[in-house]
């Protein structure tokens, strides 16, 4: 009886030891590589990279950012509506697009106004300093100097889930638009489709 108990303990111990050896230590991965995790229900960082790359490519190729005068187009980042069941931070897409636009040299982004209020409230705050006796009024930024945006970047992310037997998939549809604020017309639009599929094992999760 004692021998059996001992054998069981040794077996369990050995199994635990082997299983604990299956894990990997936390390690950094190259974000430009293909090493990231792929999950069905989430938009993973590689998905954002693919979506951003496509949007930037078609936007720069369209030539809509190039103005006839020498002035750079001023872009306002409006709202990217999250119509998925997941928590999605849409800045992962919009920041990628705005950085590419800035580096193209054809446009600049305003932080004084955005879809969810000013991204940087400082533009408004510094103008209010004219009423503060602490500051030299001649050094305070005057009213009426901020440049209003010409176009607005907005979009929506939609998710559709499908299940068939043990297979399940998520389809994400990202639609982005660039609207000319003078006319209200969309001067550029693009879609990015992401579809991911997996199959549940017979046992477990």
């Amino acid at each position: 009886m004692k021998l059996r108990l001992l054998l069981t303990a040794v077996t369990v111990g050995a199994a635990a030891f082997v299983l604990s050896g299956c894990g990997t230590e936390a390690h950094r991965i190259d974000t430009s590589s293909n090493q990231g995790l792929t999950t069905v229900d989430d938009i993973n960082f590689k998905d954002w990279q693919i979506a951003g790359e496509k949007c930037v490519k078609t936007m720069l190729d369209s030539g809509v950012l190039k103005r006839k005068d020498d002035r750079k187009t001023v872009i306002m980042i409006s709202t990217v509506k999250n119509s998925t069941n997941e928590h999605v931070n849409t800045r992962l897409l919009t920041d990628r697009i705005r950085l590419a636009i800035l580096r193209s040299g054809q446009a600049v982004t305003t932080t004084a106004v955005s879809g969810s209020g000013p991204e940087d409230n400082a533009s408004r705050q510094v103008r209010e300093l004219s009423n503060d006796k602490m500051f030299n009024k001649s050094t305070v930024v005057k009213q009426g100097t901020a440049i209003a945006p010409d176009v607005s970047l907005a979009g929506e992310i939609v998710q559709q889930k499908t299940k068939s037997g043990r297979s399940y998939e998520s389809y994400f549809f990202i639609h982005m638009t660039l609207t000319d604020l003078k006319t209200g017309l969309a001067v550029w639009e693009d879609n990015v489709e992401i579809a991911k599929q997996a199959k549940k094992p017979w046992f477990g999760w």
Partner: protein
Amino acid sequence: MKMISLAGICLAAGIALCGCQNTVNTVENKNKEMQPQEVISKKVSTDSFLRDRLKIVRIDKKVNEAGLMKVQVTAVNVRTGFFHELWSSLSGGKPYKLLYKFTWLDKDGMAVPTPSANWLPMSVIPGDDVYFQAVAPNANCKDFKLSLREYDKD
């Protein structure tokens, strides 16, 4: 007799496996209207398996309205035919998946950092053409390099 049976089974299995491999038939207009600016290319291949499977057909470029260079690299998956299809079926290359990345260089040969300099996935069905397109991140970019490698998790 046993040998003949074994050979027959192997052949049948090969044919069955090849049946799982889909290739592409294409049709296009013969008299072309397009007048592309072809780029003379220089290739450095370190992965002969990839080189033999994906053949670079041509490279074209244009400058768009915004003054940005746009390039298109046309390649074709040449791994068609019985033995190639058999091998693709066995090795799981159906469709063939790969990763690509564009690097842009300025007139001084300096690599221009771009927010989108990442390896991107692409699938190519045997027999089909694939077009790798990219637009220069700014007007200072004068040259480019396309890197290709087989799809993996690294």
